[in-house]
């Protein structure tokens, strides 16, 4: 049954979806909110998924689009309140546990512009080929590789002591 394949596929994919969300969102609670929102949108629009195409890229595209929409709204809001501390505590205020769990890698990632962050995560963490990552984002490969390069160079500098 197609439905079963879809739901079984989603279940199997959840750990990877959470990994991607952990990289995109600012703290663990936001990450699972993002996952849940993506999951719900996928369940509602499952008719749009074509059997035989990759469920993982389709899900990542959904999640990435939700994240971009939310990040735009958040950026507008944060600029008003928290400009001076950007990158350190934005998005984790009032959530001490999340703050404790932020690693050096998290902090370095959060200083990247969104488009560099998603490129870095899709290729270096999720292991997508450049062409696949570009398709998920919906940009040309050349755009993807230049964002990846810039993001990676920034990370090398931020994490330089450990690298």
């Amino acid at each position: 049954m197609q439905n079963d394949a879809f739901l079984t596929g989603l279940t199997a994919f959840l750990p990877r979806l959470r990994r991607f969300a952990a990289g995109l969102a600012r703290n663990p609670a936001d990450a699972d909110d993002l996952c849940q929102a993506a999951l719900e949108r996928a369940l509602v629009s499952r008719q749009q998924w074509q059997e035989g195409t990759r469920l993982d890229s389709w899900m990542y595209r959904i999640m990435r689009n939700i994240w971009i929409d939310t990040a735009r709204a958040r950026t507008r809001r944060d600029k008003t309140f928290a400009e001076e501390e950007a990158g350190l505590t934005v998005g984790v205020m009032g959530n001490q546990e999340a703050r404790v769990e932020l690693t050096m890698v998290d902090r370095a990632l959060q200083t990247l512009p969104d488009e560099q962050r998603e490129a870095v995560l899709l290729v270096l963490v999720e292991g997508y080929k450049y062409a696949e990552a570009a398709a998920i984002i919906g940009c040309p490969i050349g755009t993807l590789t230049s964002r990846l390069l810039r993001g990676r160079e920034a990370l090398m500098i931020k994490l330089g002591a450990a690298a």
Partner: protein
Amino acid sequence: MSVSSEQLAAYADGEVDDVNAVRIRRAIAADPALAQQLAQLTAVRELLTARFDRVLAEPVPERLTAPIDAAAKIVSLRDVRAARQSAWQRPQFRFGAGAAIAATLVIAVLVGRPASTPSGYADGQLAAALDGVSSGQTAPDGTRLLLSFRTNNGSACRGFAGKAASGIACHDDQGWKLEATGAGGRQQTTQYRQAGSADAAIMAAAQDMATGPALDAAAEQAARMAGWIPAK
């Protein structure tokens, strides 16, 4: 022979063809600075995977598995409802005199309702919606009626989703007793959340409480006409 940082990164990512890979490998062997750059590229990837791969080992929270479980249940609920529908269409299940008797019963039930609502029971607009609005329809106050079903003791229950509250109410001789309620759709919505998850949760809870499939339109109509009294 020079290798750009873009080419070196592509090499590290396995994105160059065999011919270029050989060329770049030779350049790296001949140039310690290039080898150092490659080591940095690899180190960044390793730091990232070390940070994020541990997420794969974490247990997936229930709030992420629940929507999928609920979706699976809704699918099966829809299947049994369809099966039930065809059963109702068989001639022996058609309504005749029964509906007329039910119509007289509904008056008795309306008269018999207590003037003040006991606590734990739906009151006012919600009670009116539960009484009279068909599943799939929206009451004037915005409450949507999701489905009707019966529990194993025959009680009629209804799932609803409103702005103020969502849940399941079962009818007894005091009115609509609220069995399972949650916050309304609006309160549950975080920055990422969409409306619709509450419905799925209610459908799943209904499936757990129900003894049979959801009532189809005809059975629901009959139950309403009978004042939502327990089935024999």
